[in-house]
């Protein structure tokens, strides 16, 4: 391993006023031609470190050396010019633009009068697509393609700029299990062509398979850098959270109770009248966790929205605790269903509101203790107590109640949302990707919560793209494919291969036969 040090970050400090020290004297170096993973809990400062390097955030102290020289990237443009590209944690593409437009944006080939040379641009993009064997059509709108394809567009966007250093911030968080290995082969191929890749991930297995070296961060500091071959998953997790983390299921055998949630024959169409859900049947019993597996975009989103009453169903019935909620308004549903949505900023909370305001949503209607003055007033004293309760029960690390919600790190935001929803004490809990983007410590915590719910005899429907997660906590796994529920399997009687097989559309009819028997 006689590689040169390509990037050297020295004593980087970054403060987010008023008092978040996101990076405290961080020094780390990256070598040319390596795949270097950056891991750490939520809020450890990984993204911030890379943004500082890329010129998206200003640092408050420290130096950056690139190819031995001290550099100062004030904007991404300068970083790109130096051959560095970054794919962000949140996908940053413009859905209204086509694939090629997104890729060339900022580096467009032009002809006379500043007109974009569409032909040249499209050809160049097509070439790159072929060169790296990405399966993309340059002319489709980015809004119409899958999340995985968008990830590829992001990477292509960098390759189009001929960068030699790629920074990928959680590229796999939104990918399906089938897509991850694909991405890995592509990344490995890039490395073999001489690219340097820095990638951030919470999936320790991935980190260990893909990377050459791993740097662990904790609370704005570097814990250490080591060769991946010398590490185990447990080592990594310990370094990250500072204690042991369990990776095996602690699900105790338990007899499920009566049926709590029943969806029968759900049909649902999207705005273009394409059917998104056909005759979907799902049942969840008390004390049971039912997992929903499926490649993203196969009807899970519609299932969730239909259950919550966010989109109209064309037919079907919904029932919770024997109560028919097919036509109920959202508030009625909320008396029966706790809901943790996948998109925290859009559906789970208002980022600009205060922590308190986000934490008491729904309770302020359903719980009479939140009312004063004959229901006209909101009891802020009780609200404050309530937030304290969430903080204590769910171990939320937060500042003042009136701080904006976005000042919380992702994991803590999720904990507040979980706390709010679980304290609703509803018989049925609907969770959509509750651990997406969370670190191992937080994931472990969420899993414990799920199992605690199960032992409290509540019914849980868990939608997850992470099969390992489903196998760890779910009692049954229903598989969705193209809007159909294609399989309903007891976790103990199936395995990852079988679920994957159904997910990819195999043996549809056989699956039905199996469930019927």
């Amino acid at each position, binding site marked *: 391993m006689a590689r040169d040090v390509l990037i050297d970050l020295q004593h980087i400090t970054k403060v987010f006023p008023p008092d978040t020290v996101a990076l405290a004297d961080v020094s780390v170096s990256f070598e040319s031609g390596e795949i270097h993973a950056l891991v750490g809990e939520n809020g450890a400062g990984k993204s911030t470190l890379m943004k500082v390097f890329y010129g998206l955030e200003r640092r408050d102290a420290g130096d950056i050396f690139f190819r031995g020289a001290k550099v100062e990237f004030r904007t991404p443009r300068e970083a790109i010019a130096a051959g560095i590209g970054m794919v962000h944690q949140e996908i*940053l593409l413009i859905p209204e633009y086509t694939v090629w437009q997104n890729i060339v944006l*900022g580096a467009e080939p032009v002809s006379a009068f*500043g007109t974009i040379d569409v032909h040249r641009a499209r050809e160049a993009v097509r070439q790159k697509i072929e060169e790296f064997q990405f399966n993309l059509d340059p002319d489709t709108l980015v809004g119409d393609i899958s999340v995985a394809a968008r990830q590829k567009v992001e990477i292509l966007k960098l390759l189009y700029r001929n960068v030699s250093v790629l920074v990928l911030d959680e590229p796999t968080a939104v990918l399906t299990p089938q897509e991850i290995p694909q991405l890995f082969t592509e990344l490995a191929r890039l490395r073999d062509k001489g690219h340097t890749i820095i990638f951030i991930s919470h999936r320790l297995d991935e980190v260990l398979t893909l990377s050459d070296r791993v740097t662990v961060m904790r609370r704005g500091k570097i814990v250490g850098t080591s060769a991946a071959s010398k590490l185990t998953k447990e080592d990594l997790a310990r370094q990250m959270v500072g204690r042991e983390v369990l990776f095996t299921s602690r699900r105790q055998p338990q007899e499920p109770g009566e049926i709590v949630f029943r969806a029968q024959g759900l049909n649902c169409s999207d705005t273009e009248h394409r059917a998104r859900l056909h005759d979907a049947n799902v049942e969840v019993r008390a004390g049971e966790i039912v997992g929903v597996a499926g490649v993203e975009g196969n009807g899970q989103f519609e299932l969730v929205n239909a259950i919550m009453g966010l989109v109209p169903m064309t037919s079907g019935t919904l029932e919770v605790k024997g109560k028919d909620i097919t036509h109920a308004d959202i508030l009625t549903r909320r008396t029966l269903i706790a809901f943790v949505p996948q998109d925290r900023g859009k559906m789970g909370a208002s980022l600009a509101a205060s922590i308190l305001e986000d934490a008491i949503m729904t309770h302020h209607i359903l719980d009479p203790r939140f009312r004063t003055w004959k229901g006209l007033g909101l009891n802020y004293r009780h609200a404050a107590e309530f937030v304290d309760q969430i903080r204590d029960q769910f171990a939320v690390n937060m500042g003042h109640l009136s701080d904006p919600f976005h000042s919380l790190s992702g994991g803590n935001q999720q904990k507040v949302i979980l706390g709010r929803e679980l304290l609703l004490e509803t018989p049925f809990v609907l969770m959509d990707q509750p651990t997406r983007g969370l670190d191992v410590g937080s994931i472990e915590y969420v899993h414990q919560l799920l199992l605690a719910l199960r032992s409290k005899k509540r019914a849980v429907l868990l939608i997850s793209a992470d099969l390992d997660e489903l196998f760890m906590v779910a009692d049954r796994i229903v598989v969705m494919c193209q809007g159909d529920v294609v399989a309903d399997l007891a976790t103990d009687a199936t395995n990852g291969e079988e679920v994957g097989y159904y997910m990819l559309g195999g043996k549809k009819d056989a699956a039905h036969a199996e469930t019927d028997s």
Partner: protein
Amino acid sequence: MNVLFGLVSAMVVGATPILLAAIGGTFTFYAGIFNIAMEGMMLVGAFCAVLGSFFLHSWFLGVLCAIAGALIMAGIFILFAVKLHTDEFLTGIALNLFAVGLTTFLLRDIFHVKGAFTDAGIRAIPSVKLPLIDGIPFLGRLLSGYNLIVYVAVLATVLSAFVIFRTRFGLRLRAAGYNAVCLNSSGVPASMIRIWSLIVCAVCCGLAGAYLSLGYVRLFAENMSAGRGWISLAAVILVSGNPWGIAVISLLFGFFDGLTVFLQGSRIPTQFTAMIPYVATLGSLYLYSVRKKRRQA
């Protein structure tokens, strides 16, 4: 026949300043700026046009002054809304207020008059006879002989459609509105694009102002933009920035605005005919919204 031509010409006259300002507004709209300062930019443009034309004895220099004046307004907007990140709506409101106060103040200070300044020394922007078309009997009268700025407005519409949808700047401009962070990380500072969009907007509003004070009439009157900037903004938002749509809306507004004068002979009270352009705007908003809804459903 005369009345018909009169109506057409009234339509063109009413539409031109709105069209020009709205074309400017479409740039800031695509750049993601809620720009309500068009009114103020237009007013300052109108004032500076008269200032330049009167003292420099040239309508052309007057037009340049108008653009310069509007650019100064844009500069303040840029300083506050882009650089200091103050609220755009507020910046716009303050700028509009500032424009009214400043032009009145300067009118008194420079020309020693209040209300309106008119003088034979103000050179007007000439009207243009289109070379070939002017000779054609009916069409010539319909299309030729308008003020130069009218043709500039037509050109600006075509050009803006080209720039926004065909050029590199256009691609970046729209990206700045759709997702500024994406544009930033693509290596183009969104703030630069915003600044350019405001500059383009100021140029257009400056021209619109020059049309008001040197084109159609040849004088400056306090607050002579008279709400046209707001109508432009409504037009931009109504058609989500599309330059062709803006052209249609501006012409419609101009037509109904002209109609208010032509409906005088009828028995409808003048207060009601005066409402027509605004009711018509609501009508087009209705048609637009219903169509959009139907397309979505």
